[in-house]
């Protein structure tokens, strides 16, 4: 095997997936997988929240400044690429980067607010992009387990794909990146229709009713397509599909009980990194069926 020098990539976890947060298992599994096969992830020093929907929904300049501060910090540490596993974060960072590139005045204001310059030459990667760019060969080489007949519905949601002209990642209507990764872990991809639908995202607390309806459609579609589990790469999708699942079942009177797993967890299972260390015990919906498939 070739010994490659590990590429150094800035790591921007974002609030949702750090330890002690709602989706810490995503962060944990991303880091575990990176240790095993990925490039070297180095946390951006003293990063701050990207502002998420709340910022861009109410104050464009604030939203841009909060995101750009992180990019500038990364630039100062000499990173050429940043991984932001949370698609809310990666989307905000990419959009902000483009907005300042397109608008000199905004750039000036933002640089003034964050008290730092911003060159804009750092590339921001979402998690699927990172895996596709750096880890596909490694997964093939180092895969230890092959799941038995595990059918996975890959769920992208909104933020990985849209707006496509800015993010420029995969086909916005029929993406296939996640399926390729799922298949690399040895699982079977099921073709289903709602993989790019919206789960209601940030409305989980403020308009739970909307979230319940949208997630019900998604769960129903995946289950009807024969999926044993749904793979995601977004903490919000996960929160809505996993934590809210019991409530959905009650509200719409249908039993799903379908595990929602992070794509990083799936990779981790294929590499035999151990379910607990990947955080699979932290899910609301029991993930045992998935873990067992890799036995």
């Amino acid at each position: 095997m070739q010994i490659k020098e590990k590429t150094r990539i800035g790591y921007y976890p974002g609030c949702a997936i750090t330890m002690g947060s709602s989706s810490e298992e995503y962060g944990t599994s991303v880091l575990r997988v990176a240790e095993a096969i990925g490039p070297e992830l180095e946390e951006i020093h003293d990063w701050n929240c990207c502002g998420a929907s709340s910022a861009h929904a109410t104050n464009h300049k604030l939203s841009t400044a909060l995101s750009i501060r992180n990019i500038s910090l990364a630039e100062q540490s000499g990173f050429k690429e940043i991984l932001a596993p949370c698609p809310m974060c990666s989307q905000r960072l990419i959009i902000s980067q483009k907005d300042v590139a397109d608008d000199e005045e905004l750039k000036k204001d933002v640089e003034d607010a964050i008290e730092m310059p911003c060159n804009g030459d750092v590339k921001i990667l979402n998690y699927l992009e990172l895996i596709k760019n750096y880890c596909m060969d490694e997964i093939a080489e180092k895969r230890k387990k092959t799941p038995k007949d595990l059918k996975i519905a890959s769920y992208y949601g909104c933020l990985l794909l849209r707006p496509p002209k800015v993010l420029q990642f995969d086909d916005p209507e029929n993406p296939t990146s996640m399926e390729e990764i799922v298949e690399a872990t040895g699982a079977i991809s099921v073709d289903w229709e709602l993989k790019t639908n919206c789960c209601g995202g940030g409305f989980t607390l403020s308009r739970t009713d909307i979230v319940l309806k949208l997630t019900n459609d998604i769960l129903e579609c995946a289950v009807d397509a024969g999926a044993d589990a749904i793979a995601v790469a977004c903490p919000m999708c996960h929160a809505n599909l996993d934590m809210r699942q019991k409530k959905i079942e009650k509200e719409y009177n249908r039993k799903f009980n379908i595990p929602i797993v992070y794509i990083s967890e799936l990779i981790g299972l294929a590499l035999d990194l151990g379910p607990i260390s990947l955080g699979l015990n932290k899910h609301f919906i029991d993930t045992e069926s998935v873990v067992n498939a890799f036995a």
Partner: protein
Amino acid sequence: MKIKITTKELKSDFAKEVKDRSGIDVKKCYQCGKCTAGCPVAYEMDYMPNQIIRFVQLGLKREALTSRTIWLCASCITCTTRCPKEVKIAELMDVLREMSLEEGLANPLEKNITTFHQAFLNSVKKHGRISELWMLNEYKMKRPKTALQDLIIGPQMLSKGKLSFLPHDIKGKDAVKRIFEKCK
């Protein structure tokens, strides 16, 4: 409703204001309704997304800024993605929300949503990052009616170690605070 167009309305040139702020040119929209057709939240909205654009086209500022629709938009960007005329509709909603807050016109029926955004940003302002528990706390205090709906989830999250009691302050939290000040 009746749309009354007066010189005052025409002079205000809402569409131009929107364009100057965001670069979004609503004149391009020819009202095909594809945004509405694909909107996952449209069923809850008081006006369809295309109608909001129509308000902007016609200079009906108040109608647009007091709508519930702008708050119900989930920013899933399906509309922008599929718009045949490349109008950035989701981004337009952002601008309208901003203007709505500035003018104090945010629809009280969607107070949950505006309060959530406020609680979220307050947490960022204070700590530099989100402290989910404290953010939740602030939100629930302000919107007590919503407190019950997450009664089951909260404790379960705590038990799985998913809600930390300690807010995590970043070193540069003062810098973040200054960002908030400068971006008012």
